[in-house]
């Protein structure tokens, strides 16, 4: 059986020392080992940005596509091979800026994949521009006088779009994050884990200390019920989105389970030759 070590490769991430993404990488590796998966059974699909490089830093199959489109690619991969554990990953710019449309529709579609967002409220790879999750008033290279737009709330959007599993984690809470990623992968359907993953180089506002001061850990509230969608939305609004833990979970069939005629055997391994009887039937319709 594979251990955490088997999910490590010898590639040194091009992240800055202290970047929150290191914890996310480690949490994913631990979660995969804890779940008893083998490296070849997993594919990480990522977009563009610092965090988008993560698909190259975990010893599994990895696909690094174009900016903002990790989710469509991950969904396509899952349709081709439903036996694979598919994890999509990327940053807040990738997922909630250029890719926000895909996010909402991936939620609606509900394929059995896990989406891990490393949310640092800034564009890091392009060296410090405002992101869609940057707060109103946030100063960065593209908002020198303060952000006059308002931040998108990823969890609010997810809940509004009808998501079946949503959790938030924090890079400083790696044990909790590992558990959340594990649970998200085990969940049969689209699962979002939004992670507060501080950028130590460009974001001098939303620092580790800042998060520690502002975050509410839902696991510390025994009365919190993650199966109540209305309560979940209320909690997220109350905390300004700054809550971590499992926020909402609901069991229901995934997309793959609802596709008419979809087979248990992955498409990737099926015989492609068309049954002559089916061909004849198709042709007859045009006679």
């Amino acid at each position, binding site marked *: 059986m594979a251990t955490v070590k088997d999910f490590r490769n010898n590639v040194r991430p091009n992240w800055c020392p202290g970047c929150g993404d290191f914890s996310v990488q480690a949490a994913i590796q631990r979660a995969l080992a804890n779940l008893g998966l083998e490296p070849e059974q997993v594919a990480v699909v990522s977009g563009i940005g610092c965090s988008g490089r993560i698909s*190259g830093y975990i010893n599994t199959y990895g696909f690094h596509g174009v900016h903002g489109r990790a989710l*469509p*690619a991950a969904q*396509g991969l899952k349709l081709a091979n439903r036996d694979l554990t598919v994890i999509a990953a990327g940053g807040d710019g990738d997922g909630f800026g250029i890719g926000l449309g895909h996010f909402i529709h991936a939620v609606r579609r509900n394929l059995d994949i896990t989406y891990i967002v490393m949310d640092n409220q800034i564009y890091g790879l392009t060296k410090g521009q405002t992101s869609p999750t940057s707060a109103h008033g946030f100063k960065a290279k593209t908002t020198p006088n303060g952000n006059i737009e308002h931040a998108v709330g990823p969890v609010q959007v997810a809940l509004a779009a009808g998501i079946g599993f949503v959790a938030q984690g924090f890079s400083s809470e790696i044990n909790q994050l590992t558990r959340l990623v594990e649970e998200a992968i085990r969940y049969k359907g689209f699962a979002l884990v939004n992670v507060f993953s501080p950028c130590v180089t460009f974001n001098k506002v939303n620092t580790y200390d800042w998060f520690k001061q502002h975050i509410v850990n839902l696991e510390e509230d025994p009365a919190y019920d993650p199966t109540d969608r209305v309560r979940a939305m209320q909690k997220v609004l109350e905390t300004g989105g700054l809550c971590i833990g499992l926020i909402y979970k609901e069991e229901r069939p995934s997309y793959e389970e609802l596709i*008419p005629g979809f087979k248990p055997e992955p*498409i*990737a391994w099926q015989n492609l030759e068309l049954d002559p009887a089916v061909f004849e039937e198709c042709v007859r319709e045009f006679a």
Partner: protein
Amino acid sequence: MIRGVTHRMLEELSWKVGGQQGEGIDSTGETFATALNRRGYYVYGYRHFSSRIKGGHTNYKVRVSTKRRLASADYLDILIAFDQESIDFNIKELRPGGVVIADEKFHPALPEGAGAVLYTVPFTQLAETAGSSIMKNMVALGASVYVLDLPVDIFAGVIHDTFARKGQKVVDQNMEAIRQGYNYMKEHGDNRAKLQLKPAAGSGQHLFMMGNDAIGLGALTAGCRVMAAYPITPASDIMEYLIKKMPKVGGVVVQTEDEIAAINMIIGAAYGGARAMTATSGPGLSLMMEAIGLAGMTETPVVIVDTQRGGPSTGLPTKHEQSDLYAVLFGNHGEIPKIVLAPSTAEECFYETVRAFNLAEQYQCPVIVITDLALSLAKQTVEPLRLEAVQIDRGKLVREVDPSHLNGQLFKRYAFTEDGISPRVIPGVKGGIHHVTGVEHNEVGRPDESAANRARMMHKRLKKLEGVELEGSLSFNGPEDYETLIVGFGSSRGPIEEAVERLNSEGRRVAHAHIKVLAPFPTKTLSTYTEKAHNVVVVENNATGQLSKIMKFFGISVPTRSVTKFDGNPFLPGELYQELKGLV
């Protein structure tokens, strides 16, 4: 005005039904066309429509011939009109002796000086007698075949196939409506315009399909099991067809949120080992460009169908054009190997779609199948399609890896090889782990932006198609000693064939080369034909002569002249003949 009895024996017939959109004009046309196709005629059906659901003039034009015809006729013999607009809009197409059969309900009138015969038939009233006014179309079909001296039973099979699932009563009522129309003409019509169609030569084994049907069936037969697309005219039929069929083969069609999602989804699916496709038109193709580059860079085999319509922007969304050539050849940024296939008949749409999936996997690159609105949507007689001609070739696909060969290294998905094509392993295979990225990468797929690696990898990818001319890159027809060579692609095959036939029958020496592979461009093959010609004329439906410029770009050195049309309609054979006559 035509007086007295007219009996004319026709080699072919042009028939049209016109009315308001939403009145069942399409199904009327299709019923007529299918019935005659089954009788062994060669049939070509073209619908004129706009992007409205209801209202606005629409018509369906059917050409029935004793030989293969791939274009609408310039003229009309019979016009069925459900409103006055249909008469006013189409009367100019009627040739002398032509017949208009119109619903009495709107008190039809021919414009002054129109050389046609008008029959006024109470379509609606007779349909009510048969059961319901919605069957007025059937009454019109009955009236049509009376004029043609054909029996009403030619519709029995089609009516049965269309309505049997609604019960025998509906079948009987529709046939009754057809008989009502026939009998009314027999009782009230005179013999002012009796037309007779020469008996059909065909076996009746032919199919009747539009290009989009053939692409859908071709994809299914080629083993496509994932399709992702966003609705767009004139491509949506392909998605709709596959949605109906995929459950039979365990495949899936996803209607995505946009074309960007569609292309990225099929790239993910193809990376995962499925044969995957999308289908779109110009606006969607524009949105897909970045990801087409990704498919080229990551050597992922995907098939993209571009059904061209009038551009740019929203352009003429329901009209015909061939103006995406530059886009499909040069639209993406950066440089990638890419294959572009351009079928010209529905039959070719089937076989070229199959070939597209094979080429995509053999060369591990995106393949674009480019059609145009007329090819995608016009229905035409098709020779029986042969399953035994379909071979699935997955190229260098690897499903098993001996991990002892790896020495602890990753799988060399992008190994440098003689032909530039590397073994392709799919996720899930033990020992196959590698990285895939749109960033420049090394043999195991890890980012590597070093100058030496960049040069070597670019060369590796581009080498796959360097100097390659695919089989059947073009078709040639004409006399050995031709003086003029006409070059075209896509659905203009039909009008070109007819124009050339007419010119040659008048003693001109004209040949026709029709390009079926636009990339890699068949410079060598095409130049053997252009070199022999005194005169090369390129026929295309765009304003700037894209094909003729592309020919020059790819090294066809002889000067060419262009005949273009970009008003939203395909060439009519007679119209093209007139244009070419002045040039040959």
